[in-house]
Protein backbone atom coordinates (compact mmCIF):
# COMPACT_ATOMS: atom_id res chain seq x y z
CA UNK A 1 0.00 0.00 0.00
CA UNK A 2 1.35 3.44 -0.91
CA UNK A 3 2.08 5.72 2.01
CA UNK A 4 -0.22 8.70 1.36
CA UNK A 5 1.23 12.10 2.17
CA UNK A 6 3.85 10.66 4.48
CA UNK A 7 1.40 9.37 7.04
CA UNK A 8 2.96 7.03 9.52
CA UNK A 9 -0.34 5.40 10.32
CA UNK A 10 -2.41 4.99 7.18
CA UNK A 11 -4.32 2.10 8.57
CA UNK A 12 -8.07 2.24 7.98
CA UNK A 13 -8.84 2.46 11.65
CA UNK A 14 -6.74 5.56 12.17
CA UNK A 15 -9.22 8.02 10.71
CA UNK A 16 -8.35 10.85 13.07
CA UNK A 17 -4.72 10.91 11.95
CA UNK A 18 -5.77 10.92 8.29
CA UNK A 19 -8.14 13.83 8.87
CA UNK A 20 -5.45 15.83 10.65
CA UNK A 21 -3.00 15.07 7.89
CA UNK A 22 -5.47 16.27 5.23
CA UNK A 23 -6.01 19.47 7.19
CA UNK A 24 -2.28 20.03 7.47
CA UNK A 25 -1.82 19.36 3.76
CA UNK A 26 -4.61 21.77 2.86
CA UNK A 27 -3.11 24.52 5.01
CA UNK A 28 0.42 23.95 3.68
CA UNK A 29 -0.73 24.06 0.07
CA UNK A 30 -2.75 27.17 0.77
CA UNK A 31 0.26 28.91 2.30
CA UNK A 32 2.48 28.07 -0.66
CA UNK A 33 -0.13 29.04 -3.27
CA UNK A 34 -0.92 32.28 -1.49
CA UNK A 35 2.73 33.33 -1.56
CA UNK A 36 2.99 32.56 -5.29
CA UNK A 37 -0.29 34.28 -6.14
CA UNK A 38 0.59 37.35 -4.11
CA UNK A 39 3.92 37.67 -5.91
CA UNK A 40 2.35 37.22 -9.33
CA UNK A 41 -0.41 39.71 -8.66
CA UNK A 42 2.10 42.25 -7.37
CA UNK A 43 3.94 41.83 -10.67
CA UNK A 44 0.78 42.10 -12.76
CA UNK A 45 -0.81 44.95 -10.84
CA UNK A 46 1.57 47.86 -10.71
CA UNK A 47 0.76 50.40 -8.01
CA UNK A 48 -1.53 52.89 -9.72
CA UNK A 49 -3.77 55.79 -8.78
CA UNK A 50 -6.39 57.41 -11.03
CA UNK A 51 -8.26 60.51 -9.86
CA UNK A 52 -10.92 62.62 -11.59
CA UNK A 53 -12.26 66.04 -10.73
CA UNK A 54 -16.00 66.34 -10.27
CA UNK A 55 -16.08 70.13 -10.38
CA UNK A 56 -14.50 72.78 -12.56
CA UNK A 57 -11.41 74.70 -11.48
CA UNK A 58 -12.31 78.27 -12.37
CA UNK A 59 -10.90 81.75 -12.60
CA UNK A 60 -7.39 81.13 -13.91
CA UNK A 61 -6.10 84.54 -15.02
CA UNK A 62 -4.18 85.21 -18.18
CA UNK A 63 -0.48 85.24 -17.36
CA UNK A 64 2.86 83.83 -18.36
CA UNK A 65 3.17 82.63 -14.78
CA UNK A 66 1.97 79.10 -14.13
CA UNK A 67 -1.02 78.34 -11.91
CA UNK A 68 -1.43 75.16 -9.86
CA UNK A 69 -4.00 72.67 -11.09
CA UNK A 70 -3.17 69.92 -8.59
CA UNK A 71 -5.79 67.23 -7.98
CA UNK A 72 -7.79 68.34 -4.99
CA UNK A 73 -7.89 72.04 -5.86
CA UNK A 74 -11.26 71.22 -7.42
CA UNK A 75 -13.38 68.49 -5.86
CA UNK A 76 -11.68 65.24 -6.79
CA UNK A 77 -12.71 61.61 -6.59
CA UNK A 78 -10.38 58.63 -6.64
CA UNK A 79 -11.43 56.15 -9.34
CA UNK A 80 -8.79 53.57 -8.56
CA UNK A 81 -5.96 53.29 -6.06
CA UNK A 82 -3.89 50.23 -5.30
CA UNK A 83 -0.85 52.13 -4.08
CA UNK A 84 0.38 50.10 -1.09
CA UNK A 85 0.98 53.31 0.85
CA UNK A 86 -0.45 56.78 1.20
CA UNK A 87 0.20 58.66 -2.02
CA UNK A 88 0.82 62.41 -2.12
CA UNK A 89 2.08 64.43 -5.06
CA UNK A 90 3.40 67.06 -2.67
CA UNK A 91 5.73 64.59 -0.99
CA UNK A 92 6.54 61.32 -2.71
CA UNK A 93 6.36 58.61 -0.05
CA UNK A 94 9.29 56.45 0.92
CA UNK A 95 7.64 53.31 -0.44
CA UNK A 96 8.04 51.78 -2.92
CA UNK A 97 11.22 53.80 -3.10
CA UNK A 98 13.28 55.27 -5.91
CA UNK A 99 12.09 54.17 -9.28
CA UNK A 100 10.34 54.95 -12.52
CA UNK A 101 6.83 56.32 -12.62
CA UNK A 102 4.49 57.30 -15.45
CA UNK A 103 2.56 60.42 -14.48
CA UNK A 104 -0.08 62.08 -16.60
CA UNK A 105 -3.09 64.34 -16.74
CA UNK A 106 -5.93 64.86 -19.20
CA UNK A 107 -8.04 68.02 -19.12
CA UNK A 108 -10.23 70.41 -21.04
CA UNK A 109 -9.20 74.07 -20.81
CA UNK A 110 -12.03 76.39 -21.77
CA UNK A 111 -12.40 80.16 -21.64
CA UNK A 112 -14.95 81.37 -19.09
CA UNK A 113 -16.12 84.04 -21.53
CA UNK A 114 -14.67 85.61 -24.65
CA UNK A 115 -11.95 83.67 -26.41
CA UNK A 116 -8.64 85.12 -27.50
CA UNK A 117 -8.06 83.35 -30.78
CA UNK A 118 -4.76 81.47 -31.10
CA UNK A 119 -3.77 82.27 -27.54
CA UNK A 120 -1.43 80.04 -25.56
CA UNK A 121 -2.41 77.14 -23.28
CA UNK A 122 0.49 75.28 -21.73
CA UNK A 123 0.18 72.39 -19.28
CA UNK A 124 3.19 70.96 -17.53
CA UNK A 125 4.08 68.34 -14.95
CA UNK A 126 7.20 69.09 -12.96
CA UNK A 127 9.35 67.01 -10.66
CA UNK A 128 10.87 69.11 -7.89
CA UNK A 129 13.54 68.17 -5.38
CA UNK A 130 14.59 70.09 -2.30
CA UNK A 131 18.18 71.27 -2.47
CA UNK A 132 20.16 69.82 0.49
CA UNK A 133 20.90 72.64 2.88
CA UNK A 134 18.95 75.04 0.74
CA UNK A 135 15.96 75.50 2.98
CA UNK A 136 12.82 75.52 0.84
CA UNK A 137 14.74 75.90 -2.43
CA UNK A 138 13.76 73.25 -4.98
CA UNK A 139 15.44 72.17 -8.18
CA UNK A 140 13.41 71.19 -11.24
CA UNK A 141 14.59 67.67 -11.92
CA UNK A 142 12.35 66.77 -14.85
CA UNK A 143 9.20 67.91 -16.60
CA UNK A 144 6.68 67.01 -19.27
CA UNK A 145 4.46 69.50 -21.03
CA UNK A 146 2.01 70.15 -23.82
CA UNK A 147 1.56 73.47 -25.60
CA UNK A 148 -1.47 74.29 -27.73
CA UNK A 149 -2.99 77.44 -29.15
CA UNK A 150 -6.70 78.11 -28.88
CA UNK A 151 -8.45 77.16 -32.09
CA UNK A 152 -11.59 79.09 -31.11
CA UNK A 153 -13.96 76.57 -32.59
CA UNK A 154 -15.97 76.03 -29.41
CA UNK A 155 -15.58 73.52 -26.63
CA UNK A 156 -12.19 74.70 -25.46
CA UNK A 157 -9.01 72.72 -25.93
CA UNK A 158 -8.53 69.10 -24.90
CA UNK A 159 -5.01 68.51 -23.60
CA UNK A 160 -3.19 65.42 -22.41
CA UNK A 161 0.29 65.27 -20.91
CA UNK A 162 2.23 62.23 -19.80
CA UNK A 163 5.83 61.77 -18.77
CA UNK A 164 8.12 59.18 -17.24
CA UNK A 165 9.86 60.36 -14.10
CA UNK A 166 12.64 58.90 -11.97
CA UNK A 167 11.43 59.77 -8.50
CA UNK A 168 13.20 59.81 -5.16
CA UNK A 169 11.35 59.75 -1.85
CA UNK A 170 10.57 63.32 -0.84
CA UNK A 171 10.30 64.62 -4.41
CA UNK A 172 7.31 66.76 -5.31
CA UNK A 173 5.15 66.55 -8.41
CA UNK A 174 3.27 69.63 -9.59
CA UNK A 175 0.59 70.02 -12.26
CA UNK A 176 0.39 73.54 -13.68
CA UNK A 177 -1.11 75.55 -16.50
CA UNK A 178 -0.54 78.99 -17.96
CA UNK A 179 -2.46 80.75 -20.68
CA UNK A 180 -2.78 84.06 -22.49
CA UNK A 181 -6.52 84.18 -23.02
CA UNK A 182 -6.64 87.92 -22.30
CA UNK A 183 -10.35 88.21 -23.13
CA UNK A 184 -11.46 86.16 -20.12
CA UNK A 185 -10.26 83.80 -17.43
CA UNK A 186 -9.77 80.11 -18.09
CA UNK A 187 -11.57 77.16 -16.51
CA UNK A 188 -10.45 73.56 -16.23
CA UNK A 189 -13.61 71.58 -16.89
CA UNK A 190 -14.92 68.96 -14.50
CA UNK A 191 -13.62 65.52 -15.46
CA UNK A 192 -9.91 66.31 -15.49
CA UNK A 193 -7.95 63.09 -14.94
CA UNK A 194 -4.73 62.70 -12.97
CA UNK A 195 -2.90 59.40 -12.89
CA UNK A 196 0.31 57.78 -11.74
CA UNK A 197 1.67 54.28 -12.06
CA UNK A 198 4.81 52.81 -10.57
CA UNK A 199 6.85 51.19 -13.35
CA UNK A 200 9.66 49.65 -11.38
CA UNK A 201 12.20 50.11 -8.65
CA UNK A 202 15.77 51.20 -9.29
CA UNK A 203 16.80 48.38 -7.01
CA UNK A 204 16.55 44.79 -8.14
CA UNK A 205 14.12 43.66 -5.47
CA UNK A 206 11.22 45.52 -3.95
CA UNK A 207 8.56 44.20 -1.61
CA UNK A 208 5.27 45.87 -0.85
Amino acid at each position, binding site marked *: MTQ*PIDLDCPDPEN*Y*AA*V*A*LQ*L*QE*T*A*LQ*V*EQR*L*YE*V*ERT*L*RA*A*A*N*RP*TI*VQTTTAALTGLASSLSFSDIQPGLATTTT*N*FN*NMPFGWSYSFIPVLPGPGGY*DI*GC*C*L*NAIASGAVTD*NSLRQVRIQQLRTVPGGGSVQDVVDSAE*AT*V*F*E*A*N*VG*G*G*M*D*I*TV*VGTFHLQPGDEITFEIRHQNAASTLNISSGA*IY*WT*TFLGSETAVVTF
Partner: protein
Amino acid sequence: MPDTTPIYAFPYPCPGDVVDATDFQDLANAIEAELVEVDADYLLALNRFNVDQQSSIQTIPAGVDTVITTGQYTIPAGGAGIWIATGHVFNTSTPATTNALRIRIRQGAVSRFGFTANAEGNVPRNAMAVGPIVAAAGDVLSATVLFSGVGNMDVFVDFTFKMLCRIA
Protein backbone atom coordinates in the same frame (compact mmCIF):
# COMPACT_ATOMS: atom_id res chain seq x y z
CA MET B 1 -17.96 17.92 10.41
CA PRO B 2 -15.72 18.94 7.45
CA ASP B 3 -14.07 22.36 7.52
CA THR B 4 -12.22 24.56 5.01
CA THR B 5 -9.03 26.59 4.93
CA PRO B 6 -9.40 30.36 5.50
CA ILE B 7 -8.20 31.78 2.16
CA TYR B 8 -9.07 29.35 -0.63
CA ALA B 9 -11.60 27.23 1.24
CA PHE B 10 -9.78 23.98 0.62
CA PRO B 11 -11.96 21.26 2.20
CA TYR B 12 -10.68 18.78 4.77
CA PRO B 13 -12.30 16.38 7.23
CA CYS B 14 -12.03 16.92 10.95
CA PRO B 15 -11.18 14.32 13.60
CA GLY B 16 -14.24 12.21 14.16
CA ASP B 17 -15.36 12.43 10.50
CA VAL B 18 -15.42 9.30 8.43
CA VAL B 19 -12.59 9.72 5.93
CA ASP B 20 -12.84 8.15 2.50
CA ALA B 21 -11.41 8.65 -0.98
CA THR B 22 -13.86 11.47 -1.68
CA ASP B 23 -12.10 13.66 0.87
CA PHE B 24 -8.82 13.28 -1.00
CA GLN B 25 -10.55 13.89 -4.32
CA ASP B 26 -12.32 17.03 -3.07
CA LEU B 27 -9.10 18.51 -1.71
CA ALA B 28 -7.18 17.64 -4.87
CA ASN B 29 -9.84 19.21 -7.08
CA ALA B 30 -9.96 22.38 -4.99
CA ILE B 31 -6.18 22.73 -5.13
CA GLU B 32 -6.21 22.14 -8.87
CA ALA B 33 -8.86 24.82 -9.36
CA GLU B 34 -6.72 27.32 -7.47
CA LEU B 35 -3.67 26.28 -9.48
CA VAL B 36 -5.62 27.21 -12.62
CA GLU B 37 -6.19 30.66 -11.11
CA VAL B 38 -2.50 31.01 -10.29
CA ASP B 39 -1.68 29.92 -13.82
CA ALA B 40 -3.90 32.73 -15.14
CA ASP B 41 -2.07 35.21 -12.90
CA TYR B 42 1.24 33.87 -14.16
CA LEU B 43 0.16 34.29 -17.78
CA LEU B 44 -1.05 37.82 -17.12
CA ALA B 45 2.13 38.80 -15.30
CA LEU B 46 4.25 37.68 -18.23
CA ASN B 47 1.94 38.49 -21.12
CA ARG B 48 -0.09 41.55 -20.27
CA PHE B 49 -2.85 42.53 -22.69
CA ASN B 50 -1.48 44.91 -25.32
CA VAL B 51 -3.23 46.02 -28.49
CA ASP B 52 -1.91 48.08 -31.39
CA GLN B 53 -4.33 48.51 -34.26
CA GLN B 54 -5.48 51.03 -36.83
CA SER B 55 -8.88 52.05 -38.05
CA SER B 56 -9.70 52.17 -41.70
CA ILE B 57 -9.66 55.53 -43.43
CA GLN B 58 -12.97 57.23 -42.76
CA THR B 59 -14.42 60.39 -44.28
CA ILE B 60 -15.79 62.82 -41.70
CA PRO B 61 -17.71 66.04 -42.35
CA ALA B 62 -16.66 69.36 -40.87
CA GLY B 63 -18.22 70.27 -37.55
CA VAL B 64 -19.53 66.83 -36.65
CA ASP B 65 -17.96 64.89 -33.77
CA THR B 66 -17.83 61.57 -35.62
CA VAL B 67 -17.41 58.10 -34.14
CA ILE B 68 -14.59 56.17 -35.80
CA THR B 69 -16.34 52.91 -36.59
CA THR B 70 -13.33 50.64 -37.06
CA GLY B 71 -10.39 49.89 -34.82
CA GLN B 72 -12.59 49.78 -31.76
CA TYR B 73 -11.53 47.43 -28.97
CA THR B 74 -13.58 45.39 -26.54
CA ILE B 75 -12.01 44.67 -23.15
CA PRO B 76 -11.70 40.89 -22.99
CA ALA B 77 -12.78 38.53 -20.24
CA GLY B 78 -10.23 38.76 -17.46
CA GLY B 79 -9.29 42.25 -18.63
CA ALA B 80 -11.01 44.32 -15.98
CA GLY B 81 -8.47 46.86 -14.87
CA ILE B 82 -6.68 50.08 -15.63
CA TRP B 83 -5.82 50.51 -19.29
CA ILE B 84 -3.79 53.21 -20.96
CA ALA B 85 -5.51 54.13 -24.20
CA THR B 86 -3.85 56.12 -26.94
CA GLY B 87 -5.52 57.45 -30.06
CA HIS B 88 -3.50 59.19 -32.75
CA VAL B 89 -5.59 60.66 -35.56
CA PHE B 90 -3.98 61.27 -38.94
CA ASN B 91 -5.42 63.43 -41.70
CA THR B 92 -4.84 61.97 -45.15
CA SER B 93 -6.72 64.57 -47.20
CA THR B 94 -6.76 68.29 -48.00
CA PRO B 95 -10.05 69.87 -46.98
CA ALA B 96 -10.81 73.35 -48.31
CA THR B 97 -10.25 74.85 -44.85
CA THR B 98 -8.94 73.35 -41.65
CA ASN B 99 -9.08 75.16 -38.33
CA ALA B 100 -8.77 72.40 -35.74
CA LEU B 101 -8.58 68.66 -35.33
CA ARG B 102 -9.68 66.93 -32.15
CA ILE B 103 -9.68 63.31 -31.02
CA ARG B 104 -11.49 62.02 -27.96
CA ILE B 105 -11.18 58.54 -26.48
CA ARG B 106 -14.47 56.99 -25.43
CA GLN B 107 -15.46 54.24 -23.05
CA GLY B 108 -18.78 53.04 -24.38
CA ALA B 109 -20.49 56.28 -25.40
CA VAL B 110 -18.75 58.42 -22.76
CA SER B 111 -15.83 60.60 -23.79
CA ARG B 112 -13.01 60.31 -21.25
CA PHE B 113 -10.23 62.57 -22.55
CA GLY B 114 -8.88 64.04 -25.76
CA PHE B 115 -6.50 66.35 -27.53
CA THR B 116 -7.22 69.34 -29.73
CA ALA B 117 -4.75 70.55 -32.34
CA ASN B 118 -5.00 74.05 -33.78
CA ALA B 119 -4.70 73.72 -37.56
CA GLU B 120 -5.63 77.22 -38.65
CA GLY B 121 -4.20 78.29 -41.97
CA ASN B 122 -4.64 74.73 -43.22
CA VAL B 123 -1.53 73.67 -41.35
CA PRO B 124 -1.43 69.86 -41.52
CA ARG B 125 -1.82 68.66 -37.95
CA ASN B 126 -2.35 65.33 -36.29
CA ALA B 127 -3.63 64.96 -32.74
CA MET B 128 -2.83 62.34 -30.13
CA ALA B 129 -4.61 61.73 -26.83
CA VAL B 130 -3.40 59.39 -24.11
CA GLY B 131 -4.85 58.60 -20.73
CA PRO B 132 -6.17 55.98 -18.32
CA ILE B 133 -9.44 54.07 -18.53
CA VAL B 134 -10.88 52.20 -15.56
CA ALA B 135 -12.37 49.38 -17.60
CA ALA B 136 -14.62 46.41 -17.08
CA ALA B 137 -14.69 43.33 -19.27
CA GLY B 138 -16.91 44.00 -22.27
CA ASP B 139 -16.33 47.76 -22.34
CA VAL B 140 -15.81 49.08 -25.86
CA LEU B 141 -13.00 51.60 -26.31
CA SER B 142 -13.24 53.84 -29.36
CA ALA B 143 -12.71 57.40 -30.53
CA THR B 144 -14.53 60.36 -31.97
CA VAL B 145 -12.86 62.83 -34.28
CA LEU B 146 -13.98 66.41 -34.79
CA PHE B 147 -12.62 68.48 -37.64
CA SER B 148 -13.41 72.18 -37.75
CA GLY B 149 -13.19 73.78 -41.15
CA VAL B 150 -14.83 73.46 -44.54
CA GLY B 151 -15.43 70.31 -46.54
CA ASN B 152 -14.68 66.73 -45.58
CA MET B 153 -11.58 65.18 -44.07
CA ASP B 154 -10.26 61.65 -44.54
CA VAL B 155 -8.74 60.34 -41.32
CA PHE B 156 -7.56 57.17 -39.70
CA VAL B 157 -6.73 56.52 -36.06
CA ASP B 158 -3.83 54.53 -34.70
CA PHE B 159 -4.92 52.99 -31.40
CA THR B 160 -2.91 51.39 -28.64
CA PHE B 161 -4.53 49.85 -25.58
CA LYS B 162 -2.21 48.68 -22.80
CA MET B 163 -3.38 46.93 -19.69
CA LEU B 164 -1.62 48.57 -16.80
CA CYS B 165 -3.15 46.98 -13.79
CA ARG B 166 -5.67 44.26 -13.12
CA ILE B 167 -8.69 44.66 -10.90
CA ALA B 168 -8.94 41.24 -9.29
